[in-house]
């Protein structure tokens, strides 16, 4: 028999938990849901647009009753749960319904706090929480000449006020303090907000305290402590919410402000879970959906007995859902002695931005007028990114980082529906917005799965996130800080790498066992990463797992769209000889290679080779002295060079020989992502060294070393690492930098994003400032090179992995 799961509270957090559970384990439980409201569950945060007449109730339903039937869930709608008998494990609801449970989820949300005022029980005094409240507000607005008073100038109050205003009421907002949304906004932003709301016709009574609500049966006016009275037909109280813990407290669960839960969302009774606004976790309560969804995921994971996920609290950001007003706030934006403030204010354009930094990391941000970079700041804040490298441009936003992938396209809101967002998959804005609304998507991962947008090169990730934010309003907040490597485990890249070393895990299955992998043998994402991490951690010991490499690396050639392959032999430092060229020409003719192309990396690419011909062509190349160019791998790629001092009248050093020496030292090494180099003979920099992972520029006095550059999707110029004197120095620093990157970057992270994540100073400390550490890095690198400088092509031409290149059987 299946176990019985009962959910109390048919709202956003509770149902999200059920949906997450159905996703990972649809079979485990018989599920029963109780909801006090008379319908299926809906997107509560969209009540504001409904009130403003921008959406209808139908449009905000998340799951209708047919959905519950389809998923075999018993829904008792309009039935409040009155009691729970924990000893007999029985839930008792209105109408005499009793249901037994093995596990129970409390998701009772919260209630609007109603200030206990004389007259507070009059008709027309309401909160703003559910469909019923919206109905009552719309009814009041239906009468011509109606006047409304909203008590509370926070997020919810302003959304209510704006909605009532658009419904034609005359609206006054009463606020106790002198600043609107004081918990989210600083003084300047709050002032700007007030100004534009006033221009729309809202009235404000600041620093006003309500004394009584007047009327007979129906509200007629509100009186303040200074004696003034204002007539009103409707009073909306939006002064805050209180976690709804009544039921939990009554049945003896430990409650403080909310129902107290552990990191697995269990209450003091381990059979009873609690999620959502009713919960208090590590002393925090939350009133936004993003953290609640995160709780839902962890809770579902535990219910499904995966049991390894932990909820560790969330960072939240806020947006106001008032059409035409852009406002964003996150983190601590007030600052103190240890923080620095970056400010941008352009009063005539109505733009204000404040970013608060501590040790060059974002600690909080407030934006008004143009919030397009809100998600970006939030991400930087969440990831604790060191922003020193682009600090001077931080306030101008992501579009100003020389970011060719995003550029002005960032003006998402103004874009036409037909505008292409994802260039790789040809997905335009309209398609994405439709998927978000029709399929009820909330996260980047969901949009990727459903539309493919941003699932390829990822350069449009920012755009898609912005679209999500715009489409969902305040509902969206970027994915949580802790990103597991993939869906197969709960652990992050760093945690996994640390465990491999600390526990001396030396095989893929050992890692998967120790870290409790959820799948039988992983997925392409984690297997490729693990294979690299193990290879890097245990050179010479770990046996490379070919089946955990993508096709290109498995067969040592790039697959093409027609299933044929390309072959790029190494051409040391981009230099060649007539003999080599002759050999390549003969081989190309012998195998009827359809295309011979000079690559962007100074080498020759033979394209369109049939798979069965690969070992043969490699054998011929090998005999002519060539080795694999690893153009297919997350590995050391090319070292571009210019002609240098041998020929060039400006050349200061022998850049070509330097490039050749570097390439001979590091070729064959596997790296987290591809690793490219260049050596230029003088600062004219013809080899484009300053957009390479490791770039060398010769100067009169020696060599300048640059790191973390990237061409490609998102161009980034290098950071200057240091200047050195001799060729030997260049090699030493290069090997040290490469090894540092190999040991610390996440799989599929190029040096550019890696350096932005860890910070240039972190890299310098380990390579430039610490001679001993640098030498130790070099030593580890050279040790591992013993095992990787084996030409994979030659080995395969001699028969290794024969099965990869031949059919098991040829018919007919």
């Amino acid at each position, binding site marked *: 028999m299946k176990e019985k799961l009962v959910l109390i509270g048919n709202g956003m957090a509770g149902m999200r938990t059920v949906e997450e559970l159905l996703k990972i384990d649809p079979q485990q439980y018989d599920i029963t849901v109780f909801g006090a409201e008379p319908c299926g569950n809906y997107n509560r945060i969209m009540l504001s647009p409904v009130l403003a007449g921008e959406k209808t109730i139908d449009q905000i339903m998340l799951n209708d009753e047919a959905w519950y039937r389809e998923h075999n869930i018993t829904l008792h709608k309009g039935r409040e749960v009155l009691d729970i008998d924990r000893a007999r494990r029985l839930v008792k609801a209105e109408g005499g319904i009793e249901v037994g449970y093995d596990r129970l989820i409390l998701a009772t949300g919260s209630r609007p706090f109603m200030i206990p005022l004389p007259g507070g029980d009059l008709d027309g005094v309401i909160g703003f929480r559910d469909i019923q409240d919206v109905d009552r507000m719309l009814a009041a607005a239906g009468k011509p000449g109606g006047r409304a008073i909203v008590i509370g100038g926070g997020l919810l109050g302003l959304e209510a006020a704006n909605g009532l205003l658009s419904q034609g009421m005359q609206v006054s907002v009463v606020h106790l303090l002198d600043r609107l949304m004081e918990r989210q906004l600083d003084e300047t932003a709050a002032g700007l907000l007030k100004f534009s709301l006033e221009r729309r016709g809202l009235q404000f009574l600041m620093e006003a305290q309500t004394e009584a609500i007047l009327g007979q049966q129906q509200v007629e006016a509100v009186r303040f402590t200074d004696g003034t009275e204002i007539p009103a037909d409707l009073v909306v109280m939006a002064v805050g919410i209180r976690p709804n813990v009544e039921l939990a407290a009554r049945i003896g669960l430990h409650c403080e402000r909310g129902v107290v839960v552990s990191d697995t969302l269990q209450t003091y009774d381990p059979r009873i879970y609690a999620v959502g606004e009713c919960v208090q976790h590590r002393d925090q309560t939350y009133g936004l959906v993003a953290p609640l969804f995160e709780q839902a995921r962890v809770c579902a994971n535990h219910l499904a007995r995966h049991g390894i996920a932990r909820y560790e609290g969330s960072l939240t950001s806020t947006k106001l859902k008032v059409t035409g007003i852009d406002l964003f706030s996150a983190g601590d934006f007030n600052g103190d002695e240890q923080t620095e403030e970056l400010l941008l204010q352009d009063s005539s354009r109505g733009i204000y931005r404040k970013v608060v930094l501590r040790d060059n990391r974002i600690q909080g941000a407030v934006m008004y007028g143009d919030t397009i970079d809100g998600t970006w700041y939030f991400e930087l804040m969440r990831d604790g990114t060191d922003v020193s490298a682009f600090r001077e441009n931080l306030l101008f936003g992501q579009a100003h980082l020389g970011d060719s992938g995003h550029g002005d396209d960032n003006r998402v809101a103004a874009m036409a529906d037909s505008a292409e967002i994802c260039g790789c998959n040809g997905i335009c804005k309209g398609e994405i917005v439709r998927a978000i609304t029709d399929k009820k998507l909330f996260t980047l991962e969901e949009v990727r799965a459903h539309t493919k947008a941003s699932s390829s090169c990822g350069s449009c990730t920012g755009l898609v996130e912005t679209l999500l934010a715009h489409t969902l309003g305040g509902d969206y907040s970027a994915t949580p800080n802790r990103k597991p490597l993939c869906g197969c485990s709960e652990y992050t890249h760093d945690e996994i790498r640390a465990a491999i070393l600390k526990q001396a895990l030396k095989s893929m299955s050992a890692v998967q066992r120790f870290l409790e992998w959820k799948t039988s043998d992983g997925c392409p994402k984690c297997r490729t990463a693990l294979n690299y991490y193990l290879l890097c951690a245990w050179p010479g010991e770990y046996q490379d797992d070919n089946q955990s490499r993508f096709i290109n690396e498995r067969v040592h050639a790039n697959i093409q769209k027609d299933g044929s392959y390309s072959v790029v032999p190494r051409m040391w430092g981009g230099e060649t000889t007539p003999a080599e060229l002759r050999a390549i020409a003969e081989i190309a003719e012998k195998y009827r290679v359809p295309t011979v192309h000079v690559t962007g990396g100074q080498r020759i690419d033979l394209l369109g080779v049939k798979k069965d011909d690969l070992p043969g062509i490699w054998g011929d190349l090998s005999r002519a002295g060539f080795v694999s160019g690893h153009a297919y791998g997350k590995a050391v790629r090319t070292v571009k060079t210019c002609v240098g001092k041998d020929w060039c009248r400006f050349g200061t050093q022998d850049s070509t020989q330097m490039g050749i020496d570097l390439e001979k030292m590091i070729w064959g090494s596997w790296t987290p992502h591809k690793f490219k180099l260049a050596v230029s003979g003088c600062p004219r920099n013809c080899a484009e060294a300053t957009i390479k992972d490791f770039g060398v520029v010769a100067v009169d006095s020696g060599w300048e070393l640059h790191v973390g550059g990237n061409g490609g999707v998102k161009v980034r110029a290098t950071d200057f690492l240091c200047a050195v004197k001799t060729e030997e120095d260049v090699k030493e620093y290069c090997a040290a930098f490469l090894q540092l990157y190999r040991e610390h970057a996440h799989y599929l992270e190029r040096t550019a994003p890696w350096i932005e994540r860890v910070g240039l100073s972190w890299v310098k400390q380990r390579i430039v400032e610490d001679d001993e550490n640098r030498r130790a890095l070099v030593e580890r690198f050279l040790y591992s090179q013993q095992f990787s400088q084996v030409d994979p092509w030659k080995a395969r031409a001699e028969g290794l992995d024969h099965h990869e290149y031949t*059919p098991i059987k*040829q018919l*007919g």
Partner: protein
Amino acid sequence: MQQAEQATNAAGEWLDVGRLEDIPRQGARVVRRAEGDIAIFRTIDDQLFALRDRCPHKGGPLSQGMVHGLQVACPLHDWKIHLDSGQAVAPDAGCAARFPVRLDGERVLLSLLAEEGCPER
């Protein structure tokens, strides 16, 4: 599976294509034929599946993809295909034709009669 086996048995069309050990675990090998290649996959726990070697997306060679669990990831654009049904993993849609395959001792036997449900393309 059972039914399909009987049907092809009746037609007497099992073809011996090689030994189990010729196919790498978590890998695949191809049976080449004029009508188009067939990929035989071997999972980590030695289950065998055979699919037309053509991704329902843009025809990528599924045999070159990574086998994980009961799925293979297409090498070209990373669609995931269920090995047991040939269906693409949702939200992608499409399927690759399935062929009956079984083990007789160490020998791998394949039938060239595509199973119902997913047309050969």
